[in-house]
C-alpha cells in the first residue's frame, strides 16, 4: 500500500481552529472491519509523523457511522502530546475511498 500525503491550506474550517487538511492519495484497497481499519491507521500514523515531523504518541478510535447505506465513516485521533490530528476514513462497500486528516492551530 503506497500512501501519498498532500497538505492543503483551508480557509473554510478556520472557525473550528483547523488551518490545514492532509489528503491521502492511495490505491483502492479493502477494509472489511474495524480491525483492518485500525491496522491501516497505524501505518498511516507513521507516514503522518514523517510528514509533519511530529511523534504520534497514541491513536484513539472515536467512532464510526453510516453515511447512507453504502458508506461508513471512521473517525480517529492521532495524539501528539495533548494535541491531536483528527482522521476521517471513508469506505464504500468496505473499499477504502478516502482519508482526510485535519490539523489544528
Amino acid at each position, binding site marked *: 500500500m503506497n500512501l501519498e500525503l498532500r497538505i492543503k491550506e483551508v*480557509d473554510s474550517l478556520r472557525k473550528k481552529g483547523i488551518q490545514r487538511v492532509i489528503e491521502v492519495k492511495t490505491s483502492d484497497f479493502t477494509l472489511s472491519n474495524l480491525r483492518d481499519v485500525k491496522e491501516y491507521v497505524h501505518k498511516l500514523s507513521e507516514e503522518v509523523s514523517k510528514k509533519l515531523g511530529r511523534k504520534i504518541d497514541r491513536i484513539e478510535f472515536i467512532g464510526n457511522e453510516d*453515511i*447512507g*447505506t*453504502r*458508506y461508513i465513516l471512521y473517525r480517529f485521533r492521532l495524539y501528539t502530546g495533548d494535541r491531536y490530528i483528527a482522521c476521517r476514513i471513508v469506505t464504500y462497500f468496505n473499499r477504502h475511498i*478516502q482519508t482526510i486528516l485535519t490539523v489544528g492551530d
Partner: protein
Amino acid sequence: MPELPPGQRKIPDFIVYRILGQPEIDINQWRLEITGKVENRLSFTYKELLNMRQVEYVSDFHCVTGWSVEKVRWSGVSTRELIELSKPLKGVKWGYIYSADGYTTIVPYEDLISEQSIIALKMNDQPLEPEHGYPARLFIPHLYGWKSAKWIVKIELTDTYKDGYWEALGYHQRGNVWKDERFKKI
C-alpha cells in the same frame, strides 16, 4: 424515478445541525449579497425578497448522512432570477455560498441556477424557524442538504473551485442525491 434516492431512508422530521452554532440575526441589518464575477453587485433586504415573485413547490429534503424528510412545502425567490439581475460574467462555473455563522459551501453554477433552486423564505407555509435558517436559506432539491446553506448572506459567483466547510472534509463538489455523490475522489 424511484421514491427515494439511493441509500436514503425516510424519517418523520428534520434532524437539526448547527455545526458552527446558532447565529443571531438582526433582520434590519441582514442582507443577501450577490457578488464575484457579475456586472452588478446586488444586495437584498428580507422585505425586498418577500416582495419579489415567490416560487412554491413540494419537495423532499435529503441529508447526506442518509435521512430524508418527505413532502416539505417550500417557497421563496428563484435563485436564477436573482442571479440574472446581477448579470453574471462569462466563465462563471461555481457559486460560493456564505452563511451568517461562518459556514460556507460551493455549488456548481448549473445547479445553482437550476429550475427549482430557490432562496427559501418559508417552509410549510411559515417563515423559516431560526434552526432552519431564518431569514433565508438556499434550497436545491436534487443536492444533499449541506449545499442548501442556512442563514445565507452571500453568493459569490466564481470561475474557480475552492472547498467550503464540508468539501474540505472530503464531501463531494456537487452532491447530487440521485447519483449518490456523497464523497469526492481524492
